[in-house]
């Protein structure tokens, strides 16, 4: 049995798949600060026989929480002489253009804990000044005196030659074996010293917390007698071992959210959809990502706390490319200075939550608006919903302002929320040169299926898929993962000038590293699969385009093939190509999958049923263009496969509701997914 658990802000989810390919789910409360307890709770709640767990996969928010709440360790930084302030200077950009009181993000390491040592490489990795080892020792003393708990080491050009960083780490480990330490080349081998240093610092900053969390979880799991392999979800869409996760915990930064995106790609493979827009609405945010030809896009342009108004902190590790906006079920509706209605980004969160939760929330949210318009039923909530309070909040905070009815105001909230989400969906599709008509939308998370049909229609997407287990889909995605490590090596060479032998040597050496790492993790070489990519550009450009590269020995022909692919990819992304212009390689990128045995999902048994078997009730629902319609409501759990339902209709399940518009039609496929034609 494979079991996945995913810690969210409110709930810890569990999804399992057994030997027959049957899927089951469970939910339990998240239990801060001892998150591992929630994991154990949800295992008990699911009533699965723990000794049958062969594979345990885990997604966690522990890392992102430690960063956003500034709960990490006291960290010291060692840099090349002359460059300790790089961490503080950053890139100098000011996204909030017209604000002369712009507050620059404060560095995670204050200046007195940033120390310099003499050493210097040039851009080729040649040593200009050897490492001054005595200075390293002095810095260690200084850090001890200051109560430092974790150290980051980041030297210029270490991506080209890590020797000085390795020597420094060796000295630290010898003189201070207990301290947590990260050298920059261990987390990223890409150029750009600020980004690499920031990544290294943040890795060290969360290392003690990650170690202690993973150890506690491991021991709790052992306490309840689970055996088998244990993996942690990383931000690149693959997993790693508990052991490895402790040494580069920064790779777990988007542990949970990416699993849903990855799950959408896997679901696509299963049902023959290669082009997918994955769309996830939770309590606080909506997230989306575009999957082109089955490929989940992974980049190293990740930041935390970056918004339109602040620069945030770069983390150059591979993260699934996700656009996230502050629009979820708990997003608050409010009136701005100009008298316009806005929804989000502020959220009522889990506490107090929407007015409907009855926990003291007084600000109207998207969830409240969905209740008033009949899209959600008060009966489908765990607690009693006092509708009068919900209506009153919308009346007071929105309707009164415009002199309109509560229902009109509620529909207005939904329309504004949809408009925000539509912009996010356009950002990843139309504005990147993709035609939404070529894509299907996979909607999940608590609110995904409620808004998806309206959005798909507006965007021009023809088909929407609401997967099985849609409210806990991230955990479902984790079930389907392999181990994955990304190796990205900056290697700047012109394609017309590159030494092929050197290039081949570089690929081989990356791949032997990967074999070695997997061997340490207990994965045999024959289970390891490589995908090669090169980040390429025209000479003189800054931005790169990722180009797939054939495996095996590179020769002049494959090099020419790479260049051709680059021209095509560049034209696709940037609308033009420059035939004949010189091209160069910037990074070599190898994805190494450690493939593991996964159960096949079973098709549901064909039952001769009709939609009426799942019929729950008729209730009035307010639609944007049609007004109130008496709408049939169905219970998802009772829907047989291959049943068809014509809109308008609502399909309810625990924690989610699919709203189908007039002119749209739903069928249930053999895996239990809802497939809806949008009528576009």
């Amino acid at each position, binding site marked *: 049995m494979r079991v996945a658990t995913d810690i969210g802000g409110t709930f810890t989810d569990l999804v399992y798949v057994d030997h027959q390919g049957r899927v089951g789910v469970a939910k339990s409360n998240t239990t801060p600060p001892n998150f591992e307890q929630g994991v154990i709770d949800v295992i008990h709640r699911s009533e699965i026989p723990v000794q049958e767990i062969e594979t345990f996969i885990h997604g966690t928010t522990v890392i992102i929480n430690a960063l956003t709440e500034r709960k990490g360790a006291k960290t010291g930084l060692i840099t090349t002489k*002359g*460059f*300790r*302030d*790089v961490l*503080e*200077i*950053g890139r*100098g*950009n*000011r*996204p*909030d*253009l*017209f*604000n*002369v*009181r*712009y*507050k*620059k993000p404060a560095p995670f390491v*204050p*200046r*007195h804990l940033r120390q310099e040592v003499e050493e210097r490489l*040039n*851009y080729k990795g040649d040593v*200009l000044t050897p490492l001054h080892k005595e200075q390293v020792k002095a810095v260690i003393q200084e850090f001890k005196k200051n109560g430092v708990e974790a150290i980051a080491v980041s030297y*210029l*050009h270490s*991506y080209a030659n890590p020797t000085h960083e390795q020597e420094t780490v060796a000295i630290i480990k010898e003189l201070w074996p207990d301290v947590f330490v990260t050298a920059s080349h261990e987390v990223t081998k890409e*150029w*750009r*010293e*600020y*980004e690499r240093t920031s990544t290294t610092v943040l890795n060290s900053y969360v290392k003690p917390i990650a170690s202690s969390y993973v150890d506690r979880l491991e021991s709790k799991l052992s306490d309840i007698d689970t055996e088998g392999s244990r993996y942690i979800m990383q931000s690149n869409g693959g997993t790693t071992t508990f052991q490895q996760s402790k040494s580069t915990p920064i790779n777990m930064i988007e542990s949970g959210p990416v699993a849903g995106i990855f799950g959408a790609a896997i679901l696509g493979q299963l049902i023959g959809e290669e082009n997918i827009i994955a769309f996830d609405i939770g309590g606080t945010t909506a997230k989306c990502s575009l999957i082109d030809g089955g490929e989940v896009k992974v980049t190293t342009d990740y930041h935390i706390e970056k918004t339109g108004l602040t620069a945030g902190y770069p983390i150059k590790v591979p993260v699934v490319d996700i656009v996230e906006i502050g629009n979820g079920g708990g997003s608050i509706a409010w009136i701005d*200075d*100009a*008298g*316009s*209605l806005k929804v989000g980004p502020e959220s009522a969160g889990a506490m107090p939550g929407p007015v409907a939760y009855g926990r003291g929330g007084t600000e109207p949210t998207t969830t409240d608006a969905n209740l008033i318009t009949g899209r959600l039923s008060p009966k489908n909530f765990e607690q009693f919903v006092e509708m009068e309070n919900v209506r009153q909040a919308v009346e007071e905070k929105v309707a009164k302002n*415009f002199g309109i009815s509560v229902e*009109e105001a509620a*529909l*207005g909230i939904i*329309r*504004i929320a949809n*408009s*925000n989400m539509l*912009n996010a969906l*356009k950002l990843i599709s*139309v*504005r990147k*040169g993709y035609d939404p008509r070529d894509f299907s939308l996979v909607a999940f998370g608590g609110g995904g299926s409620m808004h998806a049909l309206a959005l798909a229609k507006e965007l021009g997407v023809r088909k929407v898929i609401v997967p099985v287990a849609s409210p806990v889909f991230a955990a479902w995605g984790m079930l389907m993962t392999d181990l994955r490590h990304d190796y990205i090596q900056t290697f*700047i060479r012109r394609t017309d000038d590159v030494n092929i032998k050197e290039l081949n040597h570089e690929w081989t050496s990356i791949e032997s590293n990967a074999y070695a790492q997997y061997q340490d993790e207990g994965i045999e070489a024959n289970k390891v699969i490589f995908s090669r990519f090169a980040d390429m550009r025209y000479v003189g*450009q*800054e*931005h790169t385009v990722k180009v797939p590269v054939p495996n095996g020995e590179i020769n002049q022909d494959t090099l020419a093939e790479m260049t051709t692919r680059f021209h095509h990819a560049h034209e696709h992304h*940037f609308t*033009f190509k*420059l035939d004949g212009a010189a091209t160069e390689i910037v990074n070599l990128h190898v994805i190494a999958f450690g493939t593991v045995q996964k159960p096949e999902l079973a098709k549901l048994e064909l039952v001769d049923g009709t939609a009426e078997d799942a019929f729950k009730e008729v209730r009035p629902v307010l639609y944007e263009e049609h007004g109130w319609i008496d709408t049939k409501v169905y219970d998802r759990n009772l829907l047989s496969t291959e049943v068809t339902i014509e809109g308008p209709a609502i399909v309810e399940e625990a924690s989610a509701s699919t709203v189908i518009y007039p002119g749209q039609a739903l069928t249930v496929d053999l895996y239990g997914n809802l497939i809806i034609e949008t009528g576009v």
Partner: protein
Amino acid sequence: MNNIKKKKVDPFTLEIVKDSLNAIGEEMFYALARTSMSPIIYEVLDYATGLTDSKGQLLTQGNGVTGFIGMLTFMVKETVEKFNKNGDLKPGDIIIINDPYGGGGSHLSDVGLVMPIFYRGELIAFSANKAHWTEVGGKDPGSWTVDSTEIFQEGLQFPCIKLYDEGKLNQPLVEIIRANVRFPDLSLGDMWAQVAALRTGEKRFIELCDKYEKDTVLTTINHLLDASEKVTRNQLTELPQGTFEAVDYIDDDGIGNGPFKVQVKVTITEDQFVCDFRGSHPQVLGPINCSYTALMSAVRTIFLAITNPSQDVNDGVFRPLEVIVDKKSIFSAERPAAVSTYWETMLYGADLIWKALAPVLSHRLSAGHLLSVCGVVLSGLHQDTKEPFLIVEPSVGGWGAGEGMDGATGQFCIGDGETYNVPVEVAETRYGVLIDEYSLHTDGAGAGKNRGGSGVIRSYRALSDNQTVTATFGRHKFLPWGFNGGKDGSRNQFEIVKANGEIDGPFGKYARYPLNKNDVVRLITATGGGYGDPLSRSSDKVLFDVRSGYITVQQALEDYGVVINPDTSEVERFTAERQEKGLA
């Protein structure tokens, strides 16, 4: 405006159409970066895109830097003025314009394009953009320099003419551009990117009219402008009413003249914000002259900072704003004044208002900052590839302190924005230099209750002979100002440390200084001004600053009245002066 039928539009449709307009603005902005071939566009984001209504009123503008905020609307107005009297504008037309002295001009490098948008035969809006071309010809590579004396040395001029006539390209004009600029592929590539962005705007605007009906869109536009105006007027009523003045001096014009006095009188009433620059120095011989619309951009930038920095920008916001200036002044130069480094003066337009109002608006404004773009051009041959390289970059420096905050360290000046420095590792790979240090310039200037942010030191060591460096570092002689008792910051400067140890400088401006192998140019930027009496800075912060090396033990004593033991790094006592003020 137009034949608009007064239409009742529900408030949410209004909001969604408004959002759609902003989204079109963003998409145009993104489209330009995506299709440009020049680093200055897609990395420095030195361009702006926007939509205006049929009269040229700005509806939405996407910006990477602040410098263009006053320009698009004037480009469109110039176009309307010149072409639309007799209905000369037709669908498919695109106008090109870079005249610095009128029509939204700054310097020749900033080239604007304007496209009328027609809906069913009726002119209803304009799509416009302006971008810094890497090259427009002129006497020096890169087209801007610190020693030109008339416009004719600064490149090609496009005096508001048609690049496309009803969709047909003006091919002779393209040939003229190709023949007159140093990197025609880059310049023309950027021009095509600008054309593509304009057409994206046109297409989306028409789609919007198709979807919501033209009258709904036009009603929304009026509503948008009026609502923004209302927000700004509300803000005005919260500002102190009265007249506020400031005087300052610009160092020199790069060819030996100066300093030049500049001044402003700001009058704020309940419904107007008037900036009167009369009495400022007349236009000068060197290339630091600023055009009227560049001044307008500077004034609008600081006006936004004062009223509501994070709101969506359109012309409604600026309706209460008035700018008065003498003819042919250094802020309103006329043909044929040299303007290629106009920003050295333009930013004073913002800074003067900033300085006049900071004492009464300390919750919105900080103390003076580095102010200058601190632009650098370094060229030579790469030591390994023997190929020519060219560094053209602005520098980061210190910002001023304000109420409740120390100044930011190492940030680009107010004229820049979403601008990024070049990483050391990237610079050393591409260019024939080694960077000896990139560190904070902790000179301890800008003392105050809240301290000015540090500038930086960036040192380029030449790795081959016969390199040259040109730089323009304003605020070299007149310092970033402190306020409410805070001290002034320090100056911008650069110096040459030759291989033999000899030091030349410091300089504020210098054209084509020769560097040989192992000569080092040290670029040193200003520390921002301080806020409040330094004696009232908390001693914990003073101690932290000493431990961090932002200030010395000596400065802790002299500026802050805190005596710190250099051996133990602990506070020992306070000076009598500090104690007298009851500040322990």
